[in-house]
Structures are given as C-alpha cells and as structure tokens.
C-alpha cells in the first residue's frame, strides 16, 4: 500500500538560513503523526512545504504516490506543475493554520461553502448540505450564520477545521492549531482533533501539546535545527527519549 505521505530529502532555505536540511518521512494511511520541536526548528516550514505554500529548494513530497507541485511526464521525469494542477493537488491536502485564517467577509457557513462551490464546483444546495453537516460535527450549528469576528478563537479554529474537512482531504496538516488560543479554549479544539484521529484520518500535526501527542498520536517526531533528531511510537517517545536534545526539550516543555 502506498504511503499517504512520502517526503524525500526535503531542503528549504530562507536566504542564507537553511531551515530544513534533508527531511525524509513516510506517513502511513490513517496514521497520526505529531511533530515536536523548539520554535524555529522547521516544523511549520515542513508542513508548508508539503502543500507548497513554501516551495522546497530540493526534494519531493508525494501524497498517495503523486508528487506535489510536479506533473509526471510519460518518460518518468517530473515537470514543475502549473497553477491549475498545483491548485488541484492542494485541494487534496487539508491545512489548518495557527491563525485560523477564516475569511472575514463570509459567515461560518459561507466560509465552509466557499471552497466546495469554487474548487469542487458543487451547486449551492449540495455545498450547503455538506457545510451544515461539517459545522454540526464541530459543534457550531448555532453559530452558522455568524461572522468570524464574533466567534472566540476556539470556535474560529473549529470552523477552520470544518472548512478543511468539507473538502474531504486525503491528508490533514495542522500547523500549531492551538498555539494562538486562550488556554481555556485549547480543549475544545483538541477534542475535535481527537475525534478526527479516531475516525482514521491521516494527520500530521505540528504542536506543543505534549498530552495530545502522547495520547492520540501513533508516532511522534522531534525536529531540531532542520533535521529529524528522533522519532518513535508516541508512548516510547515520551517515556524513553533516547537523544539528549529530546530529553532536555521534553524537560523544558513539561516545566
């Protein structure tokens, strides 16, 4: 069975700063992977490179066997994909941002409906039906006609998750989804993500929520200075960290 995500030798630099120094990572179907690491370690950049929000300097990301940002030619070579192909590829990858990024000019339903209508070209009735279902799943049916700026951070993030879910992505990427939230709002978002994990979605999360990673993730990965320092099944990762860098990171995080 093809890996849901296959990242091969991924490099990325900003100017002279090399942020990713050759990342290799395979994620199986239905696997939940948490990426941990200090700020600036390259977690977000790795996620952003997966759906080409940042284009990698070198290396390729495959989603269910298809190279993202490339178009395979008949002779097996890869050609840089045009905007239309890239857009179609991105629609298969769900992305949840730290800052939610809901569109302020659309209501909750409007935010969820938008991509179904524009990208999937659904008719209004079908799109709204799906949107309402997803909004109900994240527990915000009563808020469906509100504008994002009237919602709390936790509610906005749940709408953002509903918006992503509605597209039925093959892989879901979460870029520090709870880092911008008030502490008492973190729980409601974690709850939603746990449900998604239980339903068997393939998820990659950059997070600082150690408890979530330990309880929910199948595998945890520690990234520091642009390389994968250590990876292990979640329990083992937290209970028996091997490298000194991970040990001191976990110690600092749990203080």
């Amino acid at each position, binding site marked *: 069975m093809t890996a849901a995500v296959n990242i091969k030798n991924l490099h990325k630099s900003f100017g002279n700063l090399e942020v990713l120094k050759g990342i290799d990572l395979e994620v199986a179907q239905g696997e939940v992977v948490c990426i941990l690491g200090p700020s600036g370690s390259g977690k977000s950049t790795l996620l952003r490179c997966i*759906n080409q*929000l940042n284009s990698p300097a070198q290396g390729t990301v495959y989603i269910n066997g298809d190279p993202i940002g490339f178009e395979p030619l008949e002779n097996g070579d890869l050609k840089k994909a045009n*905007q*239309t192909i890239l*857009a*179609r*590829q*991105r*629609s*298969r*990858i*769900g*992305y949840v*941002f730290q*800052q939610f*990024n*809901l*569109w*302020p*000019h*659309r209501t909750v339903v409007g935010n969820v409906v*938008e*991509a179904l209508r*524009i*990208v999937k070209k659904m008719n209004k009735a079908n799109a709204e039906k799906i949107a309402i279902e997803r909004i109900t799943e994240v527990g915000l049916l009563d808020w469906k006609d509100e*504008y994002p*700026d009237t919602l709390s951070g936790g509610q906005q993030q749940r709408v*953002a998750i509903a*918006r*992503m879910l509605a*597209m039925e992505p093959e892989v879901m990427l979460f870029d520090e989804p709870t880092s911008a939230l008030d502490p008492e709002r973190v729980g409601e978002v974690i709850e939603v993500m746990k449900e998604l994990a239980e339903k068997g979605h393939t998820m990659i999360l950059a997070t600082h929520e150690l408890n979530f990673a330990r309880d929910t993730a199948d595998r945890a990965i520690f990234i520091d200075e642009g390389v994968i320092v250590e990876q292990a099944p979640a329990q083992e990762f937290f209970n028996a960290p091997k490298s000194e860098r991970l040990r001191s990171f976990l110690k600092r995080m749990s203080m």
Partner: protein
Amino acid sequence: MEFEFRFDIVWNNFPLLLEGIQTTILLSLLTMALGTVIGLFVAIVRLRARKIFALPLIIYVEVFRGTPGLIQIVWIYYCLPILTGLQLDALTSLVIAMALNVGSYLSEVFRAGIQGVDKGHIEAAAALGFKPGQITRRVVVPQAAYRMIPAIGNVFVSAIKLSSLCSVLGMAELMYQGQIIIANFFRPIEVFTVVAVIYLIMAYTTSLFMMYLEYKLAWVNREKVPFWQRFKQISQSAFQIKPQGGL
C-alpha cells in the same frame, strides 16, 4: 458705505452656470473613470510585475503627486502637442491630464488596499485549492474594495475640485462660467459664493454615493439597518474609537 449683496445678478445668469455644471460633471466623471483604470493598472503592475516595469510607474506616481495640478494640465495641453505633434481637442487633453493626476493618487489607494488583505486569508484559499484568479476574485477584491471606498471617495471629491483648474484653458466649466459673470458684472463675492455652494453639493453627493457603496458592500451589516440609519452611524463614528460594523 454699506455693501449690498446682489445675488439677483447670479440668479439672472444662472443658465450660464447650469451649462458650466454640465461640463464640470462631464469632466469629473470622465476623469474618475479614466483615473480608476490608470490607478488599477499602475497598482497591479507595481504589485505583480518585475521591478523594471514598476520603476517608470513609481516615477509617474511621484511626479504627478508632487507637482501642482495646474501645471500638469497646462503642460499636457500645450507642451504635449509640441513634443509629440499630437493635436488633441481640449476636452480630451484636459481629461487625460486630470486622469493622470487622479490615477497617481488612486494607484496608491489601490495598492495599499490590496496589500492590506491578510496574507493568511490568501494562503487559506490557496491551501483549499483556489487558483490565483479565484483568490483575487473571491478573497482579495471583496475585502480590499470595501476598505478602499472612503479613500477612493477622497480622491473623487478632489477630482471635482481639480476640474475647476480647466477654466484657465478656457474650458467652459463651472468656474469659467462664474468668471464670465464676474467679468461682466464685477460681482466676485456673490458669484464665487454660489459657485462654491454648487461645488459643495457635487462633492457631498459624491460622498453620499461612496457611503452608500460602503453600506452596500459591507459584509458585516448584521443588523440589516436601513441606509439612513447606517449613514447616521458613519457620520458619528468619527468620535468613536471603534467604528460600528465594518471590520
């Protein structure tokens, strides 16, 4: 000796002013329309194209913002034919001159408006599979347009007043017609007062129209208030820290 206001002279010659009003409205509308096209073009090229293409446009904007409108109008009217051999009629050359002036201001308004859209909103659309054109239409334009309206209104109101400079070149617009009446009856105070009130009415009508546009485009019109009530809110919001509705 007591001064006696003779507004009757103005009323008696009002048909002259009416003709002027028509020409002023024509000049202003053409200037706004062409200026908007120029402004949009300049803003988009400056945002999207390579620096080499942007540089001449930056120079254009700075020159037209940094020199008096009167000189621009006179220069294009007299000098352009000399330099290029291109003989344009008065209306065309005046509209071009004013549109270049208005366009330089508008390009900065548009540029700021487009740049002001949160990059995250654009990335969210890209991540969901929107193509660049779809992002522009569905995410950037609705947000930018709404926020730019008050600034566009400012430039449009200036455009109306700018058109008064065309009187210098004999274009029979409102100011020119007023000056004709003054030359005949030596009554500058009365004539200028009435002319000023007419300009004010045209400017305020423009403001009201922009306010209505803002009201129509406001996505956060949750209360579904009628326009006159919303108008009251906008008029009062100058004294509030956070404007009501809007963003």
